[in-house]
């Protein structure tokens, strides 16, 4: 039994050199996750130029392919031809050609905020339905996707999450369900209230650890202070 020969392999092993076989088997073993060329060099213990040569040859034979990974623009990442890249490599549904589709995400965020504001209090399903009814999207978003967007809005501190008690303003939501409410009215400033520390130069100073009275950086000679107190 050939040690490295795989029964399910459609590739004639004979057409590969011994080194190419090692590289190919490693790449194939990673399935849809693929592998970064530098990791390959470490795992196979083959010299760099041998790995590079094998990769080139395997690519030209159509046995492997190079894919873009969302983790880095410059990384050379390889996958066996029969696999489609996993969401760890493509980034999943919110990524477009290896980059986070922030334009689309921000558009969805604005839509969700608008609907929550209109309804005052809403559950994820209520928001998802409202988005669907408004027909602003070419492809509908699932409730789960809207849920992910709302969670991001909570992290932005634009929306707060509460459990309904069925009373007063919660009347439209069944008791016990999680629901969402806008933090600020649309005319209020977008920025959350700035804390005491963040509103003075020291609060945002990257050099605070190096600042001391009489030192090179000191409160009396500080440039940030001078800009702040420039009336």
């Amino acid at each position, binding site marked *: 039994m050939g040690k490295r020969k795989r029964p399910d392999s459609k590739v004639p092993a004979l057409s590969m050199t011994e080194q190419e076989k090692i590289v190919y088997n490693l790449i194939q073993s990673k399935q849809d996750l693929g592998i970064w060329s530098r990791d390959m060099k470490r795992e196979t213990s083959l010299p760099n130029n041998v790995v590079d040569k094998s990769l080139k040859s395997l690519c030209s034979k159509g046995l492997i392919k190079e894919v873009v990974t969302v983790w880095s623009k410059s990384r050379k990442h390889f996958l066996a031809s029969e696999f489609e890249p996993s969401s760890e490599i493509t980034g999943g549904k919110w990524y477009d050609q290896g*980059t986070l589709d922030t334009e689309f995400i921000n558009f969805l965020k604005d839509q969700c905020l608008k609907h929550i504001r209109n309804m005052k209090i809403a559950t994820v399903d209520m928001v998802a339905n409202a988005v669907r009814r408004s027909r602003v999207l070419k492809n509908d978003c699932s409730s789960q996707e809207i849920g992910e967007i709302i969670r991001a809005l909570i992290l932005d501190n634009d929306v707060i999450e509460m459990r309904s008690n069925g009373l007063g303003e919660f009347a439209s939501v069944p008791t016990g369900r999680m629901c969402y409410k806008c933090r600020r009215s649309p005319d209020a400033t977008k920025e959350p209230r700035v804390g005491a520390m963040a509103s003075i130069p020291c609060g945002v100073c990257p050099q605070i650890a190096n600042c001391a009275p009489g030192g090179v950086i000191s409160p009396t000679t500080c440039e940030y202070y001078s800009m702040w107190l420039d009336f």
Partner: protein
Amino acid sequence: MRGVPPCSSRSKSRSGSRSRSGSGGSREGGGTMVPPSQYGIKYAGHIISSHFGDLVAKVCECLLRRGPLTHQNIVRFTEMSASQVKNCLLVLIQQNCVQAFSVEHPGGVGDTSRRSTEYLALFDNIIHRMRFPKFVAVVSQELDKECVELFQGLLQHGRLTLEKMIDRAKSGQEDSTAQDATREALSKLANARFVEHCPDPEPHLSPPSEEAPARKRTKSSKMVAEPETIEERVLAAATPMEAKRFLIIFDTTTEEDGQKTGDSFLGVGEKRKSDALESNKELGSDGEQVLWRVNVQEFMHRFRHKACVENVRERLDGGAAVALSAMLEISKSMEKKVKTDNSVPLSINTIYEEVMKGEAGRAMTLDHLRASLVMLGCEKGVDESYKIDLKNIIEQAQNEEVESIVLKRYGQEAYRIFRLLSKANCLLETGKISDTAFVDKKEISKILFRLWKDQFLHMEKIVVTGPRQTQFLLWKVDKTTLWPHVLDEMYHAVLNLNLRVAYELEKENELLNLPIEKRSGPLEKRYNRLRTVRLLLESSLMKLDDAIMLFHDF
């Protein structure tokens, strides 16, 4: 499966080995007291030095850095003369910044035990000096001008007897008028708990080994679980008992009458202390020898309540603020300490009754109140009673302060990441953070490492021996190390603000000394600039001090 596989080995936390900037110098005198942070001490030193000069500051900083010391040891460490040290200590004691106490050192075989007096710097009271204007503002809101004047006198002098207070008020007034007015003002201040009797000048502290079992009987089991610091033990021993703390007896008749009144104030079970009183006649005939001082605790209670209400108003809405304010008003007399975790359970009717008293509350229906109580996250008990988790509100306010720093320093994406980790309160893997916080995977490591480098995040590495990925990075917000770090930076910042105010004023010293009529044209412009600068710096100081209280006192 795409989740994080079970780890085969976990590397030691890297941030764990980083030194905490909050730790102070070595301490003599032992004890478990957490020393104030480096910049906390520098700030305290600055306050003392600007109020009482460098010599007093030197003694004070020595005590803050090294912990309680005897007079002899202070002389040794500061290399000042014995009489200089003594005078400095007297100033610090007069201003309630140092507390003396005596300790017994068990002698060796055949030796008798030996007593010594040690001096403990009271860090909190030093920092409170910068809050005097805030205290005065509270008193002026509630009491009349005479009270405010008497109160300011106490702030200035640290501690005064009634006799001294009357002397101060006498200028330009008849004796009897001044006496009556002062007594009345003092009564009002004591009733409002704005002032209190000074603590025992030198309480005796028994060695901890003997102390522990004795304390168990008197304190609840929960209290015993936490080790007490020397500072806590000294202060507990020095504080007058509750019934005596605010007691006023103006003896105008005979000694016997006075003693009777004194006794009538004492509750059942206070017999032991009452006997002690009898023996030294502290109150009865000699009531005017009682030393009074400002009761800082009362102000901290109020500031904490105010901070809670304001946070809720901003985070939730006006209704929730009204409900919380009413609950705090009812339960304030039952609060034993500033850092109270939960309010006592209060019935809906009691709360509503209090709500109705205020203008904002009159428009509230019972249902609206119920909804607000739910929004506040109140725990509902039997008979529709509610209790509020104050600790949680304070924690939320602390989170917001730190989040705001993260937003300003590192941007919106870092803000989302930080809030995610802060809420999750557990380790999360880089990929998971990127997916939930919607931060591009190409950017996320950079942001995480920046936050980690500046001690905002804690990181752990997991190495997996499987066919797939070999290493994962996990992140979390560790508040036990981050909060002291943030507080230390706040002390640093507040010190910087103070230094800058002093610098701006000194720079324009000549201008400030010019008579008004000579301040024209460009000079007037400069003067106006200085006024704006001073206003901005001083209002920032007050706000930053609120944030310091949030992290240190609440």
